[in-house]
């Protein structure tokens, strides 16, 4: 490798930092979505890098379904305390209380879809003109076609057939009043890149990502962790397994995977040999082949 060549991780990092700075320069009131998952932890890390030695010039926003793994919330609060950055929390429960969101019923009830309502309300309340997310194109095929700068109309809707072309490093964030953008600085990263970067940068993660013992139920091939929000069907029962999370989201729809990987190196080894995508454990994506595209059109990030 010549001395004027970057490793792929450094190149991806540079690309993400470039996008984050472009957001700060082009938008009046951006906000970064933060879920406490590894992708948003990386985004937060990149944002600190992009504006160093200054503070991050925008707040973070967590759309809290109220059904989080407790470890996620502890980790989130500690991270904010240590870095002194600003986090806003919006609760799905508030939208339900107001009547703008209606709780799903039945055994597979999830608040995942309701997040969209709370998110859009949060963006509107704060008059944010741009929300950054840690979505990656390798996660899901509708995402494979989304831009770095993704334009949304005044209803927060995505029009996949009418996306702006995106060339070189020239990003167009111009919009009309009331419209906004969703921006995805780590679009080009894969699950493997994320793990390698966490290892390389020694980024701390919630303990959920590492192997631990947990009571789970096997529902349609997805292992769900025991919590108050999941009701067992007649034939189901809790059983203890050694598991870890590949993604972290709402407890009602984020499956855990059986795994003995207790260190980053072991996780990387596992990711390298695994034959199922990380979203394969997400019950919300299994609803239909175009489930993600439909949710995105409605305003999901």
């Amino acid at each position, binding site marked *: 490798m010549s001395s004027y060549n*970057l490793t792929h991780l*450094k190149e991806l990092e540079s690309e993400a930092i470039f996008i984050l700075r472009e957001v700060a320069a082009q938008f009046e009131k951006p906000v970064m979505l933060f879920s406490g998952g590894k992708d948003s932890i990386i985004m937060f890390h990149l944002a600190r890098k*992009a504006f*160093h030695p*200054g503070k991050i010039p925008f707040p973070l926003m967590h759309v809290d379904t109220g059904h989080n793994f407790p470890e996620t919330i502890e980790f989130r609060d500690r991270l904010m305390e240590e870095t002194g950055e600003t986090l806003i929390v919006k609760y799905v429960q508030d939208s339900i209380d107001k009547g703008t969101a209606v709780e799903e019923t039945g055994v597979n009830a999830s608040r995942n879809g309701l997040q969209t309502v709370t998110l859009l309300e949060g963006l509107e309340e704060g008059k944010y003109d741009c929300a950054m997310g840690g979505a990656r194109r390798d996660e899901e095929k509708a995402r494979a*076609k989304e831009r770095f700068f993704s334009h949304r109309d005044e209803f927060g809707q995505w029009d996949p057939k009418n996306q702006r072309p995106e060339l*070189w490093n020239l990003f167009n964030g*111009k919009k009309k009043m009331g419209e906004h953008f969703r921006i995805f600085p780590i679009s*080009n990263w894969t699950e493997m890149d994320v793990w390698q970067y966490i290892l390389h940068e020694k980024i701390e993660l919630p303990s959920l990502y590492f192997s631990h013992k947990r009571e789970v139920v096997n529902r349609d091939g997805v292992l769900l962790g025991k919590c108050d929000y999941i009701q067992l069907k007649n034939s189901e029962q809790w059983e203890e397994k050694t598991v870890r999370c590949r993604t972290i989201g709402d407890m009602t729809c984020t499956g855990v995977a059986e795994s003995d990987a207790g260190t980053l190196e072991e996780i990387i080894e596992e990711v390298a040999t695994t*034959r199922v995508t990380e979203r394969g454990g997400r019950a919300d994506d299994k609803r239909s082949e175009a489930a993600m595209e439909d949710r995105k059109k409605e305003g999901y990030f």
Partner: protein
Amino acid sequence: MSETKGYLDMELLRFTTAGSVDDGKSTLIGRLLYDSKAIFEDQMELLEETSKQRGEEGVNLALLTDGLRSEREQGITIDVAYRYFATPKRKFIIADTPGHIQYTRNMVTGASTANLALLLVDARHGVIEQTKRHAFIASLLQIPHIAVCINKMDLVDHSQEAFEKIKADFESFASKLEIKDVHFIPISALNGDNVVDRSENMDWYEGSTLMHLLENIHIGSDQNHVDCRFPVQYVVRPQSAEYPDYRGYAGRIEGGVFKPGDEVTVLPSGFTSKIKAIDTFDGEVEQAFSPMSVCMTLEDDIDISRGDMLVRENNKPTVEQDIDIMICWMNEKKMIPRGKYTIRHTSQTARCIIKEVKYKMDINTLHRNEADREIGLNDIGRITIRTTKPLFFDSYRRNRNTGSIILVDEATNETVAAGMII
């Protein structure tokens, strides 16, 4: 653990493919992805199921890249799809685009960031219009390397003669283009000949397999490391107790190599100063080059803001308001002669007026049509613009980062054109 370490040393190669379903592009990409384990079991299961539902035999890999519902329904690729895979040597980003003429804008988009263009030729049909179109776009967008894969060699008895004829035809056409580095590989995507493994059916071919080429082609010189260009993207001013007077210029190096102590000139003001430090979150660096994102501080307190550019006194870019551009039109609304548009170039934004259309290019014949100067969707033409303020640019041929522009419609805010400065 050695695997882990190896991964941290990898380079990134971006390549673009263009083509229709028939030339085996999906099969080829599918093979690269599957052989490098980038397609997972659940994706494969979903594909098998969907293919079966649609009454297709086998697995239709196009369903993997055609992510949007309307694309799957119509069986066409509308947009640029990005796909990822990695080998122990490199990480690859594929910008996969449809090859039909009506998707020129998608091909241009995919080509804009690519190090390499992968062109597919059906061995039975040879160099056809679509091949020429792709080659022209690769040349227009100055993609540094081209791999011409002559596919379906199994259907022409793996004949060296067939391969050599296509190679000669392509070279004869390419002589009219600006293509620097071309490689020809006879393959069979279906059977895997010369894709990842060497073919046993084509002993006469002594070149590398496609995967070997992708893993080893030298990309270190693809960036400009000669002309120092640092467009200021954002000014970092912490105004904190720890950094009360810090004023850093954040941006990405778009050409050349910068070092602390270097004398720099600021455009447009013309003031000069010295680089005090090149900061990153991980500490100061000894040198910065494209495409690094850094934050520079200067010895002197000069007024510098977004859109300004740091360069070398003895190597300045062109500073002009009248600019000649090759343009690809990307919007259904035609270009308005004498129309006004917003122009984005590096970290600059200005307005411009279309002064003149010199000619329109027929991308199949390379004929310059001076009679028809109406530029509409997917048209490529040469125009002259005048900007409201001077831009600091290089020719696209010299530097893709400082030689590229986009035009934005001021009424709809849509990106309507991509341009390469001549």
